[in-house]
């Protein structure tokens, strides 16, 4: 234990991994709160899958694996996927679930094709791109962590500044519009921040499982509190703990992909929260129902 703590501080790789996965957990936890409350969890899933072709394209164009360029590519196709999704919902008879299915599979399929082409191209530099599928924390270097820190700080600052406005458009969009906060750019900005949260986590968690990092921490946090600000902080904490926990397990046990490990740790938090959460835990409800005694209501005369 002490040794692990010492390594976390002094070991270069371990420190970057821990910092990076904590950062991604905090950002996706905080923004995931809004994604979940706005019922946009599955949008996050489509978005994360749609990021894969962007990562490949960014590499094909630049020939480099600079994190900020790959993130930019991911954000561009992720955003494109979102727009396609919105368009299908608005202009066709298809429902949201069908539209999500189409966007997710088409973009992801295209991404896999590009990835396969890259692997066959004989370009030695492409090695490691496939890690974006399930994530690999061990590949996090200082440069990645810096990029994540800058983007994450920006995203969280916007949430802090526009907290009141984001809260209102999430709770009651009609009222928000009536007092002038409902302008579509507010909603677009919030969705854009969710895109940033996803993009930050892709390298560590992978495109396949990233949506869970958006939904899981927020769903767990909701079980403990009835206040939005507390929910955001708690969700960020759950995200950070799962991120660090999963990443450390994955790099200490040789070769386990990081994404699935993080999600397993997160699942533990989710199960505990749904069972024992103080605001709406199932265990308390069960206990309460078991011990209840019914008193007859007063007679109406």
């Amino acid at each position, binding site marked *: 234990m002490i040794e692990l703590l010492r390594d976390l501080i002094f070991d270069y790789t371990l420190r970057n991994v821990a910092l990076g996965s904590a950062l991604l957990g905090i950002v996706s936890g905080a923004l995931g709160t809004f994604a979940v409350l706005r019922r946009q969890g599955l949008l996050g899933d489509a978005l994360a899958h749609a990021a894969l072709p962007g990562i490949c394209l960014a590499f094909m164009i630049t020939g480099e694996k600079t994190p900020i360029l790959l993130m930019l590519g991911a954000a561009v196709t992720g955003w494109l996927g979102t727009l396609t999704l919105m368009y299908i919902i608005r202009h066709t008879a298809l429902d949201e679930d069908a539209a999500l299915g189409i966007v997710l599979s088409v973009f992801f399929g295209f991404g896999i094709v590009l990835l396969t082409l890259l692997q066959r191209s004989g370009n030695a530099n492409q090695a490691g791109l496939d890690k974006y599928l399930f994530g690999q924390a061990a590949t996090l270097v200082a440069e990645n962590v810096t990029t994540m820190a800058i983007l994450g700080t920006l995203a969280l600052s916007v949430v802090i500044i526009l907290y*009141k406005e984001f*809260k*209102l458009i*999430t709770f*009651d969009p*009609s*009222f928000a519009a009536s*007092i002038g906060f409902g302008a579509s750019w507010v909603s677009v900005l919030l969705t854009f921040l969710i895109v940033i949260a996803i993009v930050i986590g892709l390298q560590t968690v992978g495109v396949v499982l990233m949506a869970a990092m958006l939904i899981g921490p927020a769903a767990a946090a909701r079980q403990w509190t009835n206040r*939005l600000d507390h929910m955001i902080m708690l969700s960020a904490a759950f995200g950070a703990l799962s991120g660090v926990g999963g990443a450390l397990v994955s790099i200490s046990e040789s070769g386990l992909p990081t994404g699935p490990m993080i999600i397993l740790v997160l699942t533990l938090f989710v199960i505990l929260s749904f069972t024992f959460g103080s605001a709406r835990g199932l265990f308390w409800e069960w206990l309460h129902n078991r011990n209840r005694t019914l008193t007859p209501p007063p007679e109406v005369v």
Partner: protein
Amino acid sequence: MTNTNDQPPVSIKDLTVAYREKPVLWDVDLTIPAGKLVAIIGPNGAGKSTLIKAVLGIIPSAAGTIEIFGKSYAENRRFVGYVPQRTSADWDFPTNALDVVMMGTYGALGWVRRPGKAQHELAMECLVKVGMEEYAHRQISQLSGGQQQRVFLARALAQKAELYFMDEPFVGVDALTEKAIVTLLQELRNQGRTVICVHHDLDSAPDYFDWVALLNVRLIAAGEFKEAFTLENLKTTYGGVMNASLAHFQKIGLPQ
């Protein structure tokens, strides 16, 4: 009254609103006088909510002009309060009643500024006015439909408006809450404010309101109840689908 001058609270000219190709409101002209309690009445799909939402800029209008106290809504929005349909909000949202009422102060606060002690006190006062002070810290999902509606009303009071739009404030509330809401609306009217409600119940309308606008995509009639709320106008408004209600009115005679 705060500089809302002599202009009518609401003046709508040639308003047309459409969802895709289907017009929901067609060429509506409507001027509502100050200090009235106004009912907007019409069948389902008549565009009642749409009218309110178009005035408040929540949905775009295809044609026409809307003035609030003589200026555009964007310029005079600080004089306007709004109670949306209760179902438009997420009642599972992690917050309590007091916090929802405090949202009524957001408009006056403007962008970025957070509510403080003054807003907190105002919200509490408004909860007292609707008889909900005991529930201030109650999680909103644990409130009954009637209590949720009172919270929404308190939030509108916290907007300190001169003109109120309320979308079906009586839907899903019990008789006692309905009475309490009506009393409150009449109080607002007696203070010289204008209150405009989308209303469904033809029976109670003449008792609760002073002024009526009958709407079915087009504006059929508008004015004081005894002038506009005639059998003729109701038949035009409700067309062939006129129901038991009209027969009822024919039996008891229209309110004088």
